């Protein structure tokens, strides 16, 4: 299983802060996880700025995801 977290406007769009998913496939990448999230929630997140993290580090959408990872999706940050 992988734990997927959502923050800020993405969390609001999905109406959910966290999901557990099984790894979509061997050798899955972050984009695959996002597609699985969209399939499960029925919410389309494409077409907007979206950042991703794996195990609390920023990654590209093409980054690999392994079983047990924590994946997060969120909009561009606005701290500071």
């Amino acid at each position, binding site marked *: 299983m992988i734990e997927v977290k959502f923050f*800020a406007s993405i969390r609001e769009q999905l109406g959910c802060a966290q999901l557990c998913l099984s790894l979509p496939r061997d050798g899955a990448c972050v984009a695959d996880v996002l597609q699985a999230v969209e399939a499960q929630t029925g919410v389309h997140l494409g*077409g*907007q*700025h979206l950042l991703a993290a794996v195990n609390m580090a920023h990654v590209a959408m093409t980054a690999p995801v392994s079983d047990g990872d924590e994946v*997060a999706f969120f909009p561009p940050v*606005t*701290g500071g």
Partner: protein
Amino acid sequence: MLVKVQAADFDSQAEINAFPQEGIRGAGGLVSFVGTVRDYSDAADILAMEIEHYPGMTERELERISAEARAHYDILDSLIIHRFGRLGPNERIVQVTVWARHRAAAFDACRFLIDVLKTSAPFWKREITPTGMRWVTDCPGCRAGTREGHSHGVAPAVGHQHSSMHK
């Protein structure tokens, strides 16, 4: 290096006084940036600001950029404090303080830290108005060019929504 992510307000001077002295012996001075919630005299409908964050990743990112600053600039040490939760006008949001032997490095590293913090630390602001909340959007990715982890989603981008609240 010291990183604090907290809901509580802080006293800049007290934080500086309490900073471990061992690492900053030999400092000729410090440079601090303190960011505050703007006074919305021109946008009277904004009652307050609320800051959401990603607990765990926030601290990790702030520690990562602190280490990066230390690797790239001739500084002695640094302190980052960032608040989350609900903040009123003029309240402090963030403090970045850098100690160095010479002031040029302190200025450069302090500026580096706040610039990078704003594009990498997982904090999100929203404005609280009488009729609800709206997310502040800033799009540092668009502003700064492509950055790892910045994407317009897996589907083709159909345009960005930007609010009027840019910092």
